[in-house]
């Protein structure tokens, strides 16, 4: 385990950095769509896949901070695991929530048919979001860190 530790540090840190990048992109997209909706040139970097959602951006940023920040505590196993655990927990939680939302929207489309409304909803857009995509490695990290913690008790 000793030998694999630095690898773990690097992986977690990289994941954290990706989270931070996507968080800032999301925030950027939000600012663009809210304050400069007419400026076509500025609009969205991959607007389809990075929705302008400030709330999600906060969660992504927090997750990123925790994962990337954990490396700051690389000297102390407990502190390191603590940050990784909470960070990946948040990342996985938002993944689960987003998946629940997708299921909810799918059911909702069925219900709206009762009204005779045909709702178009983009499953692809709902799933190809950074919170979902990044949630998967996050869940793996969570699984690993929980196992790491279990070893002790």
């Amino acid at each position, binding site marked *: 385990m000793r030998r694999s530790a630095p690898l773990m540090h690097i992986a977690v840190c990289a994941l954290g950095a990706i989270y931070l990048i996507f968080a800032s992109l999301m925030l950027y997209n939000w600012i663009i769509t809210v304050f400069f909706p007419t400026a076509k040139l500025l609009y969205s970097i991959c607007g389809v896949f990075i929705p302008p959602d400030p709330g999600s951006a*906060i969660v992504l*940023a927090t997750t990123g*901070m925790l994962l990337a920040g954990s490396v700051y505590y690389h000297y102390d196993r407990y502190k390191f695991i*603590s940050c990784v655990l909470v960070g990946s927990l948040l990342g996985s939680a938002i993944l689960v929530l987003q998946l629940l*939302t997708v299921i909810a*929207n799918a059911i909702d489309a069925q219900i709206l048919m009762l009204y005779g409304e045909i709702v178009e909803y983009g499953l692809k857009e709902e799933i190809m979001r950074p919170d979902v995509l990044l949630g998967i490695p996050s869940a793996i990290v969570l699984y690993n860190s929980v196992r790491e913690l279990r070893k002790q008790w």
Partner: protein
Amino acid sequence: MSELSKAKHNRIKIALAGTPNVGKSVIFNNLTGGRAWVGNWPGTTVEKKVGKMRIDRQDAEVIDLPGIYSLTAYSLDELIARNAIIEEKPDVVVNILNASNIERSLYLTISLLEMGANVVVALNMIDIARERGYEIDVRKLRELLGVPVVPTIAIKGVGIDELKEEIKKACRGRKTPELIINYGDEVEREIEKIISVLEKDPALIKKYNKRWLAIKLLEKDEDVIERVRKSQVASMILKQVEKSIKTLEEALGRDIEEYIAEKRYEYAFRISNECVKVVREVPQTPSDIIDFAITHKVFGIPIILSILYMAFKFAFDVATPLVDLIDWFFAAFLYDIVKSSTLPEVVKSFLADGVITGIGSILVFLPNIVFLFIFISLLEDLGYMARAAFIIDKIMHRWGLTGKSIIPLIIGIGCNVPAIIATRAIEDENDRNVTALVNPLVSCSARLPVYLVIAAAFFVAYRGVVVLSMYLLGMLLAIMMALLLRKCVFRGPSTGFIMELPPYMTPLPKNVLIKTWERTKRFLFKAGTVILLATVLVWALSVTGPSGYIGTEALEDPTLLEKSWVGVIGKTMQPLFYPMGWDWRAIAALFFGFMAKEIVVSTMAVLYGAAGEEELPKMLSMAFTPLSAYAYMAFVLIYVPCLATLAALRGELGLKYAILALIYEILLAYLVALAIICIGIPLGLK
């Protein structure tokens, strides 16, 4: 006397006492199979709860007391618990101990034994004690305390049957030997002296344990002094007490009250030292490890924000299908059935436009509310709330509140009424008053329907952000008002708070659901009574006017509606709201919203002639501009607490402060709405 009434008269009473967060409510649920709120943060049970259990084919009453550390008259919770024990004279007091923190729990046990209560000890959370690396010698503890001790793990149901058995035994064989702590020769001598005076009033001695009374008098316990004052020999007793206190404080050179408390604690410490042995050293428990990040200086607040966002996402996005289903059921299905029936026109309109539209437009928010409560209950059971209180204290302190205020403020997101009751757990009176007074500013679930309807009409793309901004505005105003109240009305420094940090626990689905149900019940009850009445009233006032009955056509014809009572009320108040540019219907809705804020939506639905929730936004987009709609949302957020909240404020703080809350909120609402318009127009917003 018949057998039955005799049995009723002698009904067995069992009280549950324990420190906060020790699992009392879980044991309560286990014993009674009943329902009490169970939360993993201190101070969930703010009022005593009563349930039933069966002992030897007899009904016994189980009272769940608030969580307390001792039996002083210091905080309201403690007084409630103590009075319940003094007045109700329970046959058995089940004292629940936290096995992972036995010495702090024993303080209460000792206080109970000193009172002469018939105690059965449940040693709860032994699993956590083991996890922390120590074992408790139960036999030794039983010996030292002289009362039955049952080890339990309440959330897993371990030891509950044994506990029931011990309770039964204790009911039959009343009276355990009272515990006597030696407080040192000087104190004991004075206690003897006070007892000898107390003995002159046999009534007093009969009612209370005399040694306990003497000790409490030495401790300058206000409540006990009040009780003694009613005695005929009161002046004699109090004179002796005063003399004793003076002698003792001179001899000991310190405050006698603190001295006694410390002695008691020392005793608890000795007992715990004798029966707890450390099996192995545990450097850090999983809870401690997780806490490092959760309570981190930098990460703490982003984590709180993330969790809040997730709560709202869960409550709104995930609950959408249920919302639409309920809406379809009322606005399309039931509405059409009634409208196409062969009933007379008035009855049809009454049922469809009044009752169904009214109830439907409220019940449509039930899923949102249930989901929000599920999330809050999960956080409570997980143990996150106490951490949030710690993180937030530094900020709250700056604004004249304490970290503990966060609990009522978060409950307030659900409903302000239980939130205001929950302020009882705050020890400092000024803190308590301020927290309760600003609580109506926290946007409760009843206001959510209003935001959602308006947001759906004007801010489709940013629904979430706009709704969130209302919550933030509410919090911001609450903080500013708190600061103002602190500066002007409740001066003096805050004493802060102390709270145990519970270990994290996996929430039990059953407990979460029970709690969610308890909280939702209130909403449903309101929907069935107040709101139903109010919508019917609105309907009635819309189809009648100063000229008498107008007819149900009024609901579809704006010119007719203007002549109704609702039109009259709205129009009279319209000049007041001239700058905001709201039409009279919106103003009339505000008027009815005083009963409960949900009614604003159902009133608007009736007044704008919308068939259900889906249609209302379309109607609204014609009546408002986005700016005036936003100002309207802010106004609804702030203006007057609903009737139930006012009643709660009156109950907790008195009529004077309830009126203060009413007045400041109306003024503040008007100012904020005006400010939004005044700032918005020059910015080019419409």
